[in-house]
């Protein structure tokens, strides 16, 4: 583990990924599930930038990281709008309560 070692960054990314996956798997609150998705996207970004820095040395990995950040912003906006719509309909955002397909 040192700042000049690829595997230390990969380990941080792996830990963030499993924590995000744990959040997505266990939470029953829709906003918490979205937080877990953000953690997973951040871990993927760390891997992109780390491989770009230690491997090729060009900025392609950073481009992909910026695209992932852009898609995460779009996902957060649409996801939270869906959560608000679910809250207006069911008066709760428990993902187990919102299981009907029609009003």
């Amino acid at each position, binding site marked *: 583990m040192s*700042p000049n070692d690829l595997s230390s960054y990969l380990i941080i990314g792996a830990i*963030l990924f499993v*924590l995000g996956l*744990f959040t997505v798997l266990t939470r029953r609150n829709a906003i918490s599930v979205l937080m877990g998705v953000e953690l997973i996207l951040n871990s993927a*970004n760390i891997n992109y*930038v780390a491989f770009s820095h230690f491997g090729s040395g060009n900025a392609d990995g950073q481009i992909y990281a910026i*695209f992932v950040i*852009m898609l995460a912003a779009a996902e957060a906006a649409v996801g939270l*709008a869906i959560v608000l719509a679910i809250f207006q309909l069911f008066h709760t955002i428990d993902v187990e309560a919102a299981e009907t397909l029609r009003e």
Partner: protein
Amino acid sequence: MDVSTAVFYLIALITVGSAAMVAFSRNIIYSAFSLLGTFMGVAGIYIFLGADFVAAVQVLIYVGGILVLILFAVMLTHRITDVQVTNRSAGTIPALIVVSVLAYLLIDSALETPWVKAKQLVYEATAAKIGDLFLYTYLLPFELASLVLLAAMIGAVVLSRKEIKE
């Protein structure tokens, strides 16, 4: 141990600790605020990796945009008075087993693989390089990104508006 190594350990600790708070906290407000530590820690890791532009974008979009959106959603969907156990978990034990097996596999493969390393590591400003790549090699995805953002904006407005019943 020199200063940069100590700072790296501190940033890694902040990142992983805040992520653990997000995953295990029983109060959704605490979860949302510890997401701030994770995002800032990841920005610090980008700086260690020589990606200054990505770090700035991370702070601007994640901390300034997504975190504020999440906090707004939390405030709009919970009564602030009953924040005791707002963040229920279910199926913790099987999820823990799956996740720890996955963590072991990922960390083991990260440590065991003989990664090919670059001859020398470069630390220079990346904004000009990224701008060139966006306008030459990645021009089509760059333009598509604006379309995706427009669609997401319209979609969010349509989904979250109040329906007016006659």
